[in-house]
């Protein structure tokens, strides 16, 4: 179970620099810091202000000038959102959906990515092109029939109607294929075959250990995506039935339970905070994953 440092140690060591002119990674000047500081401020301020608004009364939030410092009402708003609007149930639903989608996407994407990267079979390149092409099809093309189907099955407001269509994603297959083509030497697979290992053994003992860092990153990316997914859940689930956080938020935004903007923004805070905590802890790995998935396509 040794951890493979593969993805994190991608940059060259930055210690031994003798000539200051060597290397194009020049030191940033003051202007660069000012601009980056501004970018960070613009990125983080709306999130900070979400917290501020969630800690005031509704009357205060809708009065100019808008509050800029946290107020005393955060716990009251949280308890209202939790008890009256049932954000707790939505939080559990979202965790279940995002967890299942992430698990199954990682598993199926790794298997398919391995096949596309390292197993010879007829039609491989055509099928891979098809996988990539499916990424351009917007979900709008499928929601009407899917809605008819889940209505017939009585699956409106049932979580399986948002989990099943997302069991595996083209993006994940492509992501794993790109990673394995770099990280998994052909010789390793061939050697295992010569030793008489069948495909399941190879998956378990060769592919999974090599793919583990990429599987973790893909899992996080898919989890974030599933957590924040809006269009289809908004159609398949209802705010007052069995919603995910995003659907519950849509109900709040439309004024279903309250027009108290502090409560609405407390709902937004509840939906955002878990992911922000994950980002604060694992941010560097997620950054690494996004950049790793994007190069060489």
């Amino acid at each position: 179970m040794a951890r493979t440092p593969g993805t994190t140690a991608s940059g060259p060591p930055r210690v031994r620099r003798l000539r200051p002119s060597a290397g194009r990674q020049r030191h940033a000047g003051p202007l660069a810091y000012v601009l980056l500081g501004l970018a960070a401020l613009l990125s983080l301020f709306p999130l900070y202000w979400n917290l501020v608004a969630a800690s005031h009364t509704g009357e205060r939030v809708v009065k100019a000038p808008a509050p800029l410092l946290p107020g005393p009402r955060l716990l009251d708003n949280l308890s209202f959102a939790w008890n009256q609007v049932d954000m707790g149930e939505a939080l559990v639903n979202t965790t279940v959906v995002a967890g299942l989608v992430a698990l199954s996407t990682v598993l199926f994407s790794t298997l398919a990515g391995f096949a596309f990267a390292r197993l010879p079979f007829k039609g491989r390149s055509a099928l891979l092109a098809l996988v990539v092409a499916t990424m351009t099809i917007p979900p709008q093309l499928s929601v009407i029939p899917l809605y008819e189907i889940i209505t017939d099955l009585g699956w409106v407001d049932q979580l399986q109607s948002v989990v099943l269509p997302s069991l595996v994603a083209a993006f994940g297959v492509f992501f794993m294929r790109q990673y394995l083509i770099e990280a998994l030497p052909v010789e390793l697979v061939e050697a295992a075959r010569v030793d008489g290992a069948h495909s399941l053994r190879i998956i378990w003992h060769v592919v999974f250990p090599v793919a583990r860092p990429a599987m973790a990153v893909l899992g996080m990316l898919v989890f974030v995506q599933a957590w924040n997914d809006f269009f289809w859940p908004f159609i398949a689930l209802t705010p007052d039935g069995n919603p995910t956080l995003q659907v519950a938020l849509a109900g709040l935004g439309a004024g279903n339970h309250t027009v108290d903007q502090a409560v609405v923004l407390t709902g937004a805070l509840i939906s955002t905070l878990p992911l922000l905590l994950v980002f604060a802890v694992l941010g560097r790995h997620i950054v690494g994953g996004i950049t790793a998935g994007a190069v060489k396509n």
Partner: protein
Amino acid sequence: MATSVRAAGDGSAPPAAPVRDRSAGPGSPSRRPPGRGGLRSTLHRLDLKAVPYVFVAPFFLTFAAFGLFPLIYTGWLSLHRVELGGEAQWKGLGNYSSLATSEFFWNALANTFTIGLISTVPQLLMALGLAHLLNYELRGRGFFRVAVLAPYATSIAAATLVFAQLFNTDYGLINTVLGWAGFAPVDWESSKWPAQIAISTIVTWRWTGYNALIYLAAMQAVPQDLYEAAALDGASRLRQFLSVTIPSIRPTILFTAVVSTIGATQLFGEPLLFGGSVGISGGSGNQFQTLSLLMYEKGWVTGALGQASAIAWVMLLLLLLIGGLRTLFSRLRAKEGS
């Protein structure tokens, strides 16, 4: 990676060598699968032949059930007059021709296009600049990278609800700040262009950092000699950025442009929630109704599934058209180059 090599057993030597060793080994010539015969080799061959298809099957089955079948069925519906739960009546291209004469359709198409433009172009340009800055040797680079990615972790719904307050015409912080600078308050909700700019701001806020990190990865893969050669030729930093960095990462720029275009075509949640109680119609005067919103309104408010399906297919055709034009341009460019 050491563990994985060990996990493969004794295969640490070059793969060709052990095979030859074994066939030259004790007595029996070639003990590899073909020699074993019977059930085992059949299984082995089956394993080699069938398993790749088994591994890719989950994707294609999921796509067939939840992507391809609905796509075709939506096409069939678009040729009919259908209400939810009702019988379908053949209508030919009627749904499409009534779209062609519908001012709501052309309005939604134009809004999708303008919001797409306002949200994509500045976003990608700012992402390029941001990536360039992040590519410097920095103190606190980890912080900056995670900070600009934080909006990506925020959902459409949460971000839009926050921005709807910040953009509020009467008490929003943005108008307050504009007031300090001496500007009159802007009507961010019911005026067309301000509303479209506000919605584009939400999109831009959520995706700029993400795209910047993608560009950053591409920039770090640009060979260093290119910069050294350019520096020797006396190229300034700006010159290097324009004539070395940009051309080197052109494929990545194209990739993000394609992804952003696809996203812009589908824009739904931001205008819906920004509009509050009049979100589905894209504001009281449809001033920011997108194609997706119009489709939702037709399908789930009016109950005209045939028309909604036609709008969905128009979206697909638009994307195909854009994709086709892109291929055409790159072909032309390649021809010019050669």
